[in-house]
Every structure is written in C-alpha cells, then in structure tokens.
C-alpha cells in the first residue's frame, strides 16, 4: 500500500517538471490551436517577405515612380493585376514598395516607442516618489493631447520625410506606453520575488535585469504587436490627410488618397490599397489577440 503512495507522488513531480521546461513550446501550442491567430501570423509573414523582397520584385525608378500617362486609370488586367493610377503607374508595383515603406515606418516607430517608453516608464515605476511624480506629470500633459493630433503637429513642424514620420508617430505613442510600463513595473516590484531579491542583497541593476525586465516582456510583446497595427493606422491616416509621406514615394495611405478624385471613373485606385491596409491591420490584430491569449491563459475565459 505504501508503494501506491510513492507512485502517485512521483507521477506528480514528473509532470510538474515537464511543464516548466516547455513553457515557450506550450505558448506556441496554444497559439497554434487558435486558427485566427495562425491566419494572422501567416499573412504577416507573407507581407514581411514581400516587403523584404520588394527590391527584387520591382524596379523602383521604372515601375514605381515614373509616370506612364498613356496607360493611366486602367482597371485590373493581366498586365496590371491591380490596374494603374492617375498617371499610369502600376498599382501592384507601388503596393509592393508601399508595403516596405509602411512596414518600415511601423516597425521603426514602434521600436522607438518601446525604447523610449520603456525607459521612461521603468525609471518612473522603479524609483517612485518625486522622480515618478515629475516624470508622470510631464507624461500626462503629453498624453492629454490626442495621439493623432500630436503626430500631426510634429509632422507638420518637421516636414514630410519618412524619418520625420517615424519620429512624429513614435513620440505621439510614447506617453501611453510609458504609463503601461510603469504600471507593470509597479505591480511586479511589489511581488515577493523582488522583495526576496532585495533581502538577498541584490542591487537595483541586478533586480531590474533579473526580475523586472523578464516580467515586463510578455505584456510588452503583446502591446508591441498591437501597436504596430495602430501605428500603421496612424501613418496611413496622416498620409491620407496630406500630412504624411508625400507622393511620388509610394505609401498605401497616399496612394489611396490620390485615388479620391477618381472614385467615379477608377475606384480600384482607392479600393485596393484600402483593402491591403485592412488585411494588414486585421492580421496583426488577430495575431496580437492570439498572442495575448497564449501568453496569459488566465485572461481567456
């Protein structure tokens, strides 16, 4: 009879160990079991692939920026699968390059936000007190200006280059992220293992590296993913309003905007880039949602 007890216990400890070792593969399993998240992931990967290989697929001077007036406003055909725009450029070629630009701006702006926002939020949350007070006061003032508006103002002041776009959108999204990081840091800071680390004589830097950062990473991954979708939305919105990246540089928002006056005769100029934006944002959001559920199964009920 005591034998039974032993077996039951050992079975328990084995399964416990297995759980610990394969945390990342468990996350992947959960992610894979969600169809919508996988569809999002596949579409995102394809988009990134297209963006990376844009240089091989089309010739920038010839296909993307040079006008070809005789072939203007053509609907989709074998030669031009997505048709041509108001000065006869092939829309598909421009969209392929546009993917590169939109994704580059998005990634760069989000990385900007993650670095600056994490720095501000982590310092503020970790030190608390006066430092936190001052930083958060300033942060809140920035946050009180609506995102898109702040981006518009900065973009107006700086001018319309791609770099300026990254800065404008990066700065505009930073205050929100800093708040999130601060909240996460504060909640982690009070947890037992940090106290334990302190009690064992760890210094600030060790504690930040060993405990705070690893615990902040999962929410950051999710937030970062969803941010990319929001940033794409902002970038294209600015371009649409004529404040963002200017033609002839192909960007989905300005391509779409350029089709507005031809809505009656050549709707495809507006419809197709818009569809691309929707599909891109949708797949990123699906992926982000799936990632959130996979990283934090407790949230999913």
């Amino acid at each position, binding site marked *: 009879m005591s034998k039974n007890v032993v077996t039951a216990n050992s079975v328990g400890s084995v399964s416990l160990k297995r759980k610990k070792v394969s945390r990342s593969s468990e996350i992947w399993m959960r992610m894979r079991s969600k169809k919508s998240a996988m569809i999002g992931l596949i579409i995102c990967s394809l988009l990134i692939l297209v963006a990376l290989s844009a240089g091989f697929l089309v010739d920038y001077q010839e296909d993307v920026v040079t006008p070809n007036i005789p072939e203007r406003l053509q609907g989709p055909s074998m030669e031009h699968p997505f048709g041509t725009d108001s000065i006869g450029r092939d829309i598909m070629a421009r969209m392929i390059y546009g993917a590169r630009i939109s994704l580059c701006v998005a990634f760069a702006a989000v990385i900007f936000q993650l670095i600056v926002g994490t720095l501000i939020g982590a310092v503020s949350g970790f030190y608390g007190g006066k430092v936190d007070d001052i930083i958060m006061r300033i942060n809140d003032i920035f946050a009180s200006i*609506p995102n898109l508006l702040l981006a518009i103002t900065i973009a*107006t*002041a700086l001018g319309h280059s791609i770099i300026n776009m990254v800065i404008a959108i990066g700065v505009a999204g930073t205050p929100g992220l800093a708040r999130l990081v601060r909240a996460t840091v504060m909640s982690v800071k009070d947890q037992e293992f940090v106290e334990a680390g302190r009690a064992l004589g760890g210094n600030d830097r060790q504690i930040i590296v060993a405990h705070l950062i690893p615990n902040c990473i999962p929410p950051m991954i999710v937030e970062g993913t969803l941010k990319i979708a929001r940033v794409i939305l902002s970038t*294209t919105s600015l371009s649409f309003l004529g404040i963002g990246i200017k033609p002839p540089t192909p960007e989905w928002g300005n391509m779409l*905007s350029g089709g507005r006056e031809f809505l009656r005769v050549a709707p495809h100029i507006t*419809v197709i880039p818009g569809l691309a934006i*929707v599909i891109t944002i949708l797949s990123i959001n699906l992926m982000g949602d799936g990632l959130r559920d996979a990283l934090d199964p407790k949230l999913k*009920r």
Partner: protein
Amino acid sequence: MSRYIFRRVLQLIPVILGASAIIFFILSYSTQDPVMMLLAGTDPTPEQIEMTRQQLGLDKPIVVQFFSYMGGLLRGDLGVSYNSGRPVFQEYIARFPATLKLAFWALFVSVLISIPIGIVSAIKQYSWFDNFGMTFAMLGVSTPNFWLGLMLMLLFAVKLGWLPSGGYGGLEYLIMPAVTLGTSQAGLATRMTRSSMLEVIRQDYIRTARAKGLSERVVIIKHALKNALIPIVTVVGFQFGHALGGAMITETIFSWPGVGRLMIDGIHKGDRPVVIGCVIMLCIMVSVVNLGVDIFYAFLDPRIKAGYTK
C-alpha cells in the same frame, strides 16, 4: 460632489496650459515659414516679407511670442487667424455646431451597435452570434475610417446615387459621416462591452441574482449591465471627446464643415494661431468629456460616489 468637480477643473488648468505650451513650441520650430506660406504665389519683395513678419508678431523672440500668447490664452483670447484675420475663437465657434452634430450622431450609431452586440456576445460566449459579433468588432477596429467612408461613398453616392457625397445640410448629408465615424467607434466599444460583461457575469452577485429566481433579462439588465457599464462609458466617452474635438478624417472625406476641417486647413495653410487654437480647444473638449464621464461614474457606482465626497 461640487467640491470634487471644482478640484478637477482646477487640476485641468495646468494640463491644458502645458499641452498648449508643447504645441506652441513644436509649431514655433516648424520648418514651414508661415509668412512664406501666406505670401505664396505673390512673388514678394524682401521688404514685404519683413513687413508681414512684423505684422504677425513673428519677428520677436519665441519666448516673447510665447508669453504674449499665453497671456492672451488666460484671457480667453486664442489669437487671430493669419488667413481670415478673424479671431480664432470666433472661427471655432462658427464651426463647432457641425462637429457637435456629427459627434452626437456618431455616438448614437456606435452605442446602438456596440452595446446590444457586446451583451449578447458575452452571454452567448463562443456561440455563432459571438463569433459573428467579434468578427464584426475586429473588422471595425481594423478598418481605417477614411477607407470605410470612401467605400460608403462609392456605394451610396457614386453607384446608387441615394445619398450626397458630401456637404452640410439635412439628414441625407449626415447619414454617411455619422455611420462612418460611428461604426469605426463601435468596434472597440463592442469589444469593451463584451469583455466587461464577461467579467461581470461570472461575479458571485450574478449567481445570487439568479438564485432569487429572476429572469435572465432582469439579471442581465438590472444586475450585470449596470456593473459592466463603467469601462464601456470610459471608452465611449473617450471616443466622444475626440469626435467633439473634430473628426478630422471623417470631416475631410465628406467635406463636413466642422472644427476638424478648420484645423486641417489651418495646417495646410500654415495658419499657426488656428492650429494651436484648435488643439487647445480639443484638449479642453476631451478633458471636459472625461470629467463628465467621471461624474457619471458616481451615478453608476455608489462606491465611487462615496470616494468623491470624501
């Protein structure tokens, strides 16, 4: 309660002044020269340029400009538009009714869509309706409203000819802008309603309510919804505040003469006082709506009310 409101309004002042200062300095270091933009197309002489610069007060050091602007702001003076020569505040007030109308109807459309779908999706979690509702909401948050607006225009104005493609007037002019803005708000609001309801319906007091023998309708509406409303009101209020500050994109698509258009035009024309004035007004709108939302919380939750009167 009135003390709470007073305190909140007091707290608003430094935030709005701070935001104004940020916007002022960003635009002051602009690479665009408002003088050149104003005189564009006239081939001005250097004397003309200098004179205009003096007229606009742009020859003084930025710090001086800043304090004179802030001084005006504290008296409620938002400056004078470079282009029309009229006070910015007057221009703003002239445009505001159109924006208010659009913001209100968009709110109506958004609430009408999001609350029922969110509630049903939550109580029938994982059902076909939930899948449908969440797909709708996901499409809503993923569709840029400039594209949605143009697609509605393509269908209802260009192809079918049922509605005018833009302008300001009766109900027929309002439908597409309100639906464009409202549905793009509804995506997030639906998701919020669902998640908030899901959170509430697994609370113990919902079980208590069911154990009393109440019908599901009473349980959901009387016991669950009122508790779930706070995050929903937060999101909807946030969206409403922003729409009040000018739905720049929707107004641009449908040539809706609201404050969003005023601001975008100001940007394109380098009309700095108009832009700063609009931003300040927008911040005020957002803050006032936020305050309204916070006060509304007190009516939803007696615990919050108790906190305010403390």
